[in-house]
C-alpha cells in the first residue's frame, strides 16, 4: 500500500451528526472524530455510539479515520475503546499520554479486540498525544513503544498549561516541544504532526505557522476547521522546481540501478539514500496536490 500522507488531520466533534456525516468531503488526509474535549460529560455515551455507527456506515473513502478517545484515567476511556475498537477505525488518538505504560494499556486492549473480532493484528494504529511535561520527558520511549505507532502529535493548550508557559499566537513557547517531538519521531522512524492553530479566521497566521513547522521538519498539522485544510496543503505543496528536481533524482537513481552503478551524482552533487527519500516525499506531496 502507498504510504499515507498526513498533512492534515481534521478534528470533528463526535456529537455532531451532520459534521460527522460530511467529515470526509473537505479533502483532509485524516479526520479525527473526537470523543474527548469536543464532547461534554453528559454526552459521552451518545457520542460514542454515534461515532461507532458512523464508522460502520459512512464511507470515508481514502481518508484516514481516527477516533480520539478519552484518556484511560477518566471513567470513559475504556468504554470508548471497547466500543470504538470493534468498529475498526484506522487509528486511535490517545490523549495525555505520559508513559510507556499508557501505550501498553491501549495495546493490550487492542490486541484482545482484534483477536476477538478477527481483525488483522496491529491493524488499528495508536496515535499518542503528548500534552504534559511528563509526556514530553518520556516522548523518546513513547514514540518507540508500539509497532502500532506511526505518528505522534502534541496538544499545545494542555502542554503550556502544564509547564506554566504563556500561550501566545506567535507560539515561541512551543519551540522546545516541537523540536523534541520531531527528534523523538525521527529517532523512532515515525511521523510527527503539529498541534492546532486555534485562530480560525486568521489564515495568514495559519500559513505562517505551517511554513514554520514544515521548515522544522513536521509532516503535518491537526486542524479544527475545514477552511484550514487548503492553506495547510498549499504550504506542503512543493514548487514546480522542487518537483522537477525530484523527478530527475528518481530518474537518475533508476538509470543507476539499471547500470548497476553504486554511487551516483546529479549536477555534480552526490545522490544518496536521504536525498532519494526526500525526492520521493516531494513527489508524494505533489501527487496529493494533483500536480503529477
Amino acid at each position, binding site marked *: 500500500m502507498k504510504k499515507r500522507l498526513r498533512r492534515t488531520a481534521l478534528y470533528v466533534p463526535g456529537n455532531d451528526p451532520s459534521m460527522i*456525516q*460530511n467529515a470526509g*468531503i*473537505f*479533502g483532509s488526509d485524516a479526520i479525527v472524530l473526537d470523543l474527548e474535549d469536543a464532547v461534554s460529560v453528559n454526552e459521552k455515551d451518545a457520542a460514542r455510539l454515534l461515532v461507532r455507527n458512523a464508522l460502520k*456506515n*459512512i*464511507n470515508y473513502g481514502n481518508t484516514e479515520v481516527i477516533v480520539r478517545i478519552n484518556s484511560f484515567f477518566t471513567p470513559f476511556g475504556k468504554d470508548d475503546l471497547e466500543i470504538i475498537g470493534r468498529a475498526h477505525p484506522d487509528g486511535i488518538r490517545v490523549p495525555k499520554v505520559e508513559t510507556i505504560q499508557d501505550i501498553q494499556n491501549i495495546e493490550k486492549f487492542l490486541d484482545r479486540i482484534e483477536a476477538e473480532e478477527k481483525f488483522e493484528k496491529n491493524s488499528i494504529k495508536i496515535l499518542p498525544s503528548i500534552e504534559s511535561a511528563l509526556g514530553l520527558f518520556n516522548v523518546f520511549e513513547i514514540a518507540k513503544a508500539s509497532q502500532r505507532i506511526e505518528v505522534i502529535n502534541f496538544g499545545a493548550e494542555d502542554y503550556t498549561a502544564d509547564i506554566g508557559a504563556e500561550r501566545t499566537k506567535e507560539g515561541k513557547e512551543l519551540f522546545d516541544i516541537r523540536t523534541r517531538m520531531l527528534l523523538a519521531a525521527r529517532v523512532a522512524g515515525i511521523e510527527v504532526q503539529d498541534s492546532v492553530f486555534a485562530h480560525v479566521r486568521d489564515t495568514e497566521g495559519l500559513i505562517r505557522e505551517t511554513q514554520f513547522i514544515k521548515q522544522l521538519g513536521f509532516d503535518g498539522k491537526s486542524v479544527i*476547521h*475545514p*477552511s484550514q485544510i487548503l492553506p495547510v496543503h498549499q504550504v506542503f505543496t512543493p514548487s514546480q522546481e522542487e518537483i522537477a528536481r525530484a523527478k530527475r533524482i528518481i530518474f537518475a537513481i533508476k538509470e543507476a540501478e539499471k547500470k548497476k552503478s553504486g554511487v551516483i551524482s546529479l549536477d555534480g552533487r552526490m545522490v544518496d539514500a536521504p536525498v532519494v527519500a526526500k525526492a520521493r516525499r516531494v513527489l508524494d506531496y505533489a501527487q496529493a496536490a*494533483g500536480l503529477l
Partner: protein
Amino acid sequence: MKNKIGREIPDEIKGIGKIKPFMGAFSTIPSCDRMSLPITFKNRDEKKIISNLKEAVKKAGIKDGMTVSFHHHLRNGDYVVAMVLDLLADLGIKNLTIAPTALFPVHKSVTKHIESGLVSSIQGSVNGPIGALSSHGAFDVPVILRSHGGRARAIEAGELKIDIAFIAAPSADQYGNLNGIEGPSACGSLGYAMTDAMCADKVIAITDHLVDYPLFPISIPQIYVDYVVQVDKIGDPKGITSGTLEITKNPLRLVIARRVAEIIEASGLLKNGFSFQAGAGGTSLAVTQFVAEKMTEMGIRGSFGSGGITGYFVKMLKENLFKSLFDVQSFDLEAVQSLKDNPNHLEMSASFYANPHNRGCVVNNLDAVILGATQIDHHFNVNVNTESDGVLLHGIGGHMDTAAGAKLTIIATPLLRGRIPIVVDKVITVTSPGETVDVLVTERGIAVNPNRKDLIDKFKEAKISLKNIQDLSKEAYDLTGIPEEPRFTEKIIGMVEYRDGTVIDVIRQVK
C-alpha cells in the same frame, strides 16, 4: 399521454384547454403571429397623471375576469401588488387572473384575495404560501408556471394576454417615462416589466418619485404608458436591494463552489470572450469569486455576465474581466449604482434575456451557467418547483432558459439537504429537461450527462474524477434511506410550461 421525457400529462386541462406536449428542448417551431394591440393614443392636451389609483384603474376599464400583471423588481419590499389587489377587492372585482413575474413572502396577503374570490388564477410564478395554497387545491384553474423567457414568449405570442399591467416605477415623469435607478425605492433594472409594458392593453405606472419631464435615462418609454399615479411609497428599500451579498461561509458549499470553478476551467470555455451567469445564492457568489480569480490569473477578458446582477459581477466589470453586463434584475446596491454609472452595464428585457422565439436572446450566447435544484434525477432532469413533499413552493426564474441556452449548464447542489436526498431516481416535477443539463456538482462527487462525451473527455484529461449519477443517488440513499414518495390526488393544480409553450410536466394536488 406521455410527453417526450415520459411524464404523464393529459391532452386537455380544464380551464386551460388543449395542451401541446413537450417534444424536446429545441423542437418547437412557432407558426403563429406576434400578438397585436389596438392603437391607442393621447392628444396633446391629455394628461397621464391621475390623482389616485382608483381613478386610474377605472379609466383603464377594470372588469371582472381580467388579467393583470406585476413585476417583482421590488422583491420582498414590494407594496404595489398588495396596494392594487386591496383596491380591486374594495371595488368588488372578481375572478382576476394575476400574472406576476414572481411573488415573494411579502405577498402573503394575496392568499386572502384568493380565498375571497378576487384572484381565481395565477399565470407566471408562485412562491411559498401561495404555492402551498395552490398545492392544496385553492384554484379551479391550475397555476401556469413559466420561466422568465417563457413568460415573455407567451405574452408576445398572445397566449398570455395582459389587460392591465401595473408597473411599480422607482422613478417616473408626468408623461410616463420610467426607470428603476433613481428614487427612494430604486431597484436597478426594470427588465421584467418591459415586455408587459409593450404588450398590455393598458399600462398604469405607480411611482413614489415623480420628476419633471423628461426623466433620464428612460428604461420604459412614454409610448407604452397610459397613466401615471403618484403614491407615498411603492416599497420598503430594505426588502428591495440587499447590502453587499455574502459569499457562503459554509465549508461544504465552498467545496462545491471550488469544484464548479475547476469544472468551468477544465471545460475549455474559460478563454477570451467567456460569458457567464450565476445567481445571488451564497454558493453562486463563491463560484463567481473563484471564476474571477481564475480569469485574473489567466489574464482573460470575458464578453459578458448576465441575468440577475450582483456586486460581484459589477466588480468583474470594473476589473475589466467582462466587456459588459446584461442586467435583467439588479440584486444589490452595487448593481443599482453600476447600472446608473457604467455605460457598459446594460439593462435588458426578459424577452431580450431569454425568450426562445424572438430573433435571438442573450442566453443563446452564454458559455456557462450555474444553477440550483431541489431535485435532480438519473436522466439529469431538474426540479426547482416542488419540494420533496410534493408541494409547489418555487417559481422557475430563468432556470430552463439558461439551461437550454448555455454551452455548459452546471447544477451545483449538496447531495443532501438535512436528511433529504437531492439526487434521486426520479424527480417529482421536471422543470428543466436533462438534455439541457450537462454537469452535476455535489460535495460528494461530480457527474456528467453521458450525452456530453466531449466534456467527459476534457474532465478526464484534467484529472477530475467523475462518478455516475446513479452512484451519487445511491450514496445519498445509503445515508438517508429511500424516502417515501409524496402522495397526490388526480387533480392537476399546476402546469409547468416549457419555454417554447409546450407542457413539460403537471403538478398534482397533494393528499
